[in-house]
């Protein structure tokens, strides 16, 4: 457990190497994850999602500043899409946070989505775990919201912040299932633009209409202009207030339990995927032949693939 011990002591290089190993699914890194997981669960995780161009990175750059002033150590996981054509990616979120580039207590890691659709990949979750074990007080996870994946993404976070901007037809976006129910904080960025106030009114109206289910926390709507660092202090206060609410109400345990459930599902799916990849090719071909010839059905065939997994 060479890397793990160093990570627990806050070693930056060991942390970076373990994150990379997990991202690339190296067996030695996965082995360390088993022990590493037992050291996680301390950090407050803030998910920041929203359409590309909404200003998430700039906003985060500002938030890191205010949280640092309060003496908290920060981890950031910034996810950008991989090009489906080339398999490469430009990870440009860090650019807007580089003013913190010399702060020893800020660790920023850019991740390419590598084909994962939706908000949450194994690599994202694992990177959060490593930064948690490293001892970061707050971990911000930034990713593009895409509706479907947003609910998973929000389940990863303790506090879920959704960023929108005026004039993008977002009245309709926000009605889409999932977003209204999972966001704890709505941020209307670029609030100096026309339409900010009316978007706020629309959001408020929609929040009134959507069912409760979030106990005593009423989602808040904030206006910011990240490019001018306006609204950052207020947003910081709301995030901290939400953190306090989670602790006092016992809601934090419920959320962590939901996260654990999500992780279990992901790990099982992962294990099945690996198993499938390892199944003897000839055996699979025979099954496919039987299916094509209507000698068996997909569900029975699936059992014949999975059953060996249990042994």
């Amino acid at each position, binding site marked *: 457990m060479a890397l793990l011990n160093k990570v627990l002591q806050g070693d*930056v*290089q060991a942390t*970076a*190497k373990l*994150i*990379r190993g997990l991202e*690339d*699914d190296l067996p030695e890194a996965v082995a360390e994850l088993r022990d590493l997981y037992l050291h996680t669960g301390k950090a407050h995780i803030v998910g920041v999602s929203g359409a590309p161009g909404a200003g998430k990175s700039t906003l985060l750059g500002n938030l890191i500043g205010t949280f640092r002033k309060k003496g908290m150590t920060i981890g950031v996981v910034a996810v950008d899409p*991989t*090009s489906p*054509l*080339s*398999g*490469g*990616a*430009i*990870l*440009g979120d*860090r*650019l807007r946070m*580089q003013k913190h*580039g*010399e702060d020893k207590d800020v*660790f*920023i*890691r*850019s991740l*390419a989505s*590598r084909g994962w659709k939706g908000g949450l990949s194994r690599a994202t979750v694992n990177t959060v775990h490593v930064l948690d074990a490293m001892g970061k007080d707050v971990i911000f996870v930034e990713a593009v919201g895409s509706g479907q994946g947003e609910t998973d993404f929000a389940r990863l976070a303790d506090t879920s912040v959704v960023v929108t901007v005026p004039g993008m037809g977002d009245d309709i976006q926000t009605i889409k299932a999932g977003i209204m129910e999972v966001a704890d904080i709505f941020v209307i960025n670029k609030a100096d633009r026309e339409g900010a106030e009316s978007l706020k009114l629309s959001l408020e109206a929609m929040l009134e209409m959507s069912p409760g289910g979030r106990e005593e926390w009423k989602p808040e709507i904030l206006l910011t202009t990240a490019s001018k660092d306006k609204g950052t202090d207020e947003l910081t206060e709301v995030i901290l207030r939400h953190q306090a609410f989670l602790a006092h109400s016992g809601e934090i345990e419920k959320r962590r339990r939901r996260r654990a459930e999500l992780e279990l599902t992901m790990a099982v799916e992962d294990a099945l995927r*690996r198993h499938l*990849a390892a199944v003897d090719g000839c055996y699979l071909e025979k099954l496919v032949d039987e299916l094509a010839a209507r000698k068996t059905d997909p569900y029975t065939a699936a059992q014949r693939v999975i059953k060996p997994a249990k042994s």
Partner: protein
Amino acid sequence: MPERKIRVLIAKPGLDGHDRGVKIVARAYRDAGYEVIYTGVHQTPEQIVNAAIQEDVDLVGLSCLSGAHLYLFSEVAKQLQEKGAANVIVVGGGIIPKEDVPKLKKAGIKEVFLPGTPLAKIIGWTKENIKLK
């Protein structure tokens, strides 16, 4: 199992704010299948080195058009050494006189791409010389 990717950090140290060329290089790397972290302009060597370590990159590409390359590039290479990241390879490009190339190489810059170098040459060099360990 997922395919491994090579990670490249592209940065502009110092006061030079002309980023059009470096963005083209970044895109070329992306189109060649690399994961590129672009840190932007006006970076100090320390910001660049910290980013390189946090992001566990395999290659750092520095761009400088202002003439301060001798100091800035060698400072990045030096700090990478000092912080235990000597395995990270550093290359540079920009407005660099041919006469400075030997000095840069002596300071730890593995290759220098002079003005007019075709993108294909930069990518080709990278494919040849930067491998995953």
